[in-house]
């Protein structure tokens, strides 16, 4: 531990992707003294490698690339002269008497910061090949889609000449197009489920436009090659994801690219022993984005994996506002906060997991349906005479998140989300 006195801040924001940038700006604008901590050299998080467009339609009313979206947020952040440290990695967080002592590691050595509030904005990670069950060797050439994206878009190096993509998540679809445009052959995208995981528009513009086939209910069951991937075996699967005999096919390729989902990065939440929601796989929060540790807030993909960066920014702003308010009027987790009730059969997940009637922040509720459903009504009961929210949705699909903002105050004695006809 370093001996030097810890530098004091109101709010430490951990992570400088869209969530952390928005949180830092919002906490600053609400009067807090803020330090933004980032482990990479540059700000922007994963948006740095998102050269594709479709970002910002909600936040900027314009269609931007991920890099343009990031630059706008970075410019806004720098214009406010908020303190920032980069290439700094959080190694320890200790709660002390009403404050937190955060230790970072960087090329300059260890630094200590004392702060009243922390905003976790550490984003999400890709599931790895070890988290999906694939038999065979472990040669070079097995990449996550994000790693392939980093090679192509940041380093300008092609990781493959001919590849198979396993999983139909958006990054995999985006990379299918990107690799094709850069001259690689994408043999096909293989999805174990009977429906694609990514957005419909990405199936259309990334696969159909380039005649890349999408094989549903099909998965990779074996990888061949000692030094480098030489081929993979694919097989069709039944309803229980078991391979169907006689459907095995061996495909020559030099890479297997995995786009098999994202998970909140909960290393720091675990360090703080925060309760994790098994549905969102991120820490549990109330509508102010405060976790069960007083003064620790969370936003963006560490809470749940969003499909739009715009929503990450929205939750960052809420967390920044709440953290700044906490610094002037500290509060503890309200044990009487109402826990969100919903049917697991109807919703994949919904959050915030708690509604604290004593907190002033308006409620923004995020949810995903479990199934592809049409013409269903979703109602939120917050204990008022009328429903806090009720809307009939033309269509709800698991891959497209819905958000609902409730401005009117309600008793909050009930906090229940239902799906009905």
């Amino acid at each position, binding site marked *: 531990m370093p001996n030097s006195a810890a530098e004091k801040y109101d709010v430490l924001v951990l992570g400088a992707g869209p969530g952390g940038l928005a949180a830092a700006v919002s906490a600053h604008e609400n009067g807090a003294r803020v330090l933004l901590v980032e482990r990479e*050299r540059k700000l922007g998080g994963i948006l*740095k490698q998102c*050269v*594709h*467009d*479709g970002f910002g*339609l909600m936040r900027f009313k314009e*269609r*931007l*690339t991920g*890099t*343009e979206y990031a*630059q706008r947020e970075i410019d806004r952040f720098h214009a406010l002269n908020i303190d920032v440290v980069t290439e700094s990695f959080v190694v320890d967080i200790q709660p002390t008497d009403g404050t937190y002592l955060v230790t970072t590691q960087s090329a300059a050595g260890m630094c200590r910061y004392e702060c009243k509030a922390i905003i976790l904005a550490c984003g999400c990670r890709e599931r790895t090949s070890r988290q999906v069950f694939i038999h065979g060797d472990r040669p070079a050439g097995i990449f996550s889609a994000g790693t392939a994206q980093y090679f*192509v*878009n*940041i*380093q*300008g190096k092609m990781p493959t000449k001919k590849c198979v993509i396993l999983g139909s998540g958006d990054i995999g679809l985006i990379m299918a197009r*990107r690799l094709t*445009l*850069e001259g690689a052959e994408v043999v096909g995208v293989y999805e174990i489920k009977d429906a694609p995981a990514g*957005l*419909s*528009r990405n*199936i*259309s*513009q990334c696969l159909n*436009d380039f005649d890349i086939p999408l094989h549903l209910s099909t998965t990779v069951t074996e990888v061949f090659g000692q030094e480098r991937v030489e081929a993979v075996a694919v097989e069709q699967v039944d309803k229980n994801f078991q391979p169907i005999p006689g459907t095995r096919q061996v495909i020559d390729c030099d890479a297997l690219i995995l786009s098999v989902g994202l998970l909140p990065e909960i290393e720091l939440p675990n360090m703080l022993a925060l309760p994790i929601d098994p549905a969102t796989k991120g820490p549990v929060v109330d509508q102010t984005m405060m976790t069960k540790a007083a003064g620790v807030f969370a936003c963006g993909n560490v809470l749940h994996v969003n*499909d*739009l960066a715009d929503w990450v920014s929205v939750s960052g702003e809420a967390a920044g506002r709440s953290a700044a308010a906490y610094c002037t009027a500290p509060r503890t987790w309200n044990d009487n906060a109402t826990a969100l009730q919903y049917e697991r059969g109807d919703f994949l997940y919904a959050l915030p997991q708690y509604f604290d009637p004593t907190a002033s922040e308006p409620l923004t509720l995020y949810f995903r349906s479990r199934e592809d459903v049409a013409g269903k009504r979703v109602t939120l009961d917050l204990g008022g005479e009328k429903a806090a929210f009720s809307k009939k949705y033309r269509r709800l699909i698991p891959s*497209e998140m819905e958000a609902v903002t409730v401005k009117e105050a309600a008793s909050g004695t009930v906090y229940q989300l239902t799906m009905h006809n």
Partner: protein
Amino acid sequence: MEMICIVCPNGCRLEVTGTGDDITVTGALCPKGVDFAHTELTAPLRSLTSTVATAFPLVPRLPVKTRGEIPKGKMHEAMAQIRAVRVTKPVKVGDVILADVFGTDIIATGNAGEVAA
């Protein structure tokens, strides 16, 4: 026929009936979807995003995009032009990297060089 509108992440499922200029589009949440269906059936357009090489060791690639849209069938040809570029002077978001590529410009979508910080 059915098509997916690719204008925004909503990805509306469009149902298109009729032929030629006399088509009816249903299922679009906004007028852009109707325009998309018309263009898609006559002369489909796409925006193209990519990267170009730079001379800057810390930022070896600069992200770029077409300012407007180009014909769908010209994406590979546009890529060949983009691949030939190497940026040697500092650039920032919006700067023209390659002028007049199939009726539009290729512009920077990131900063590189002295202003890259």
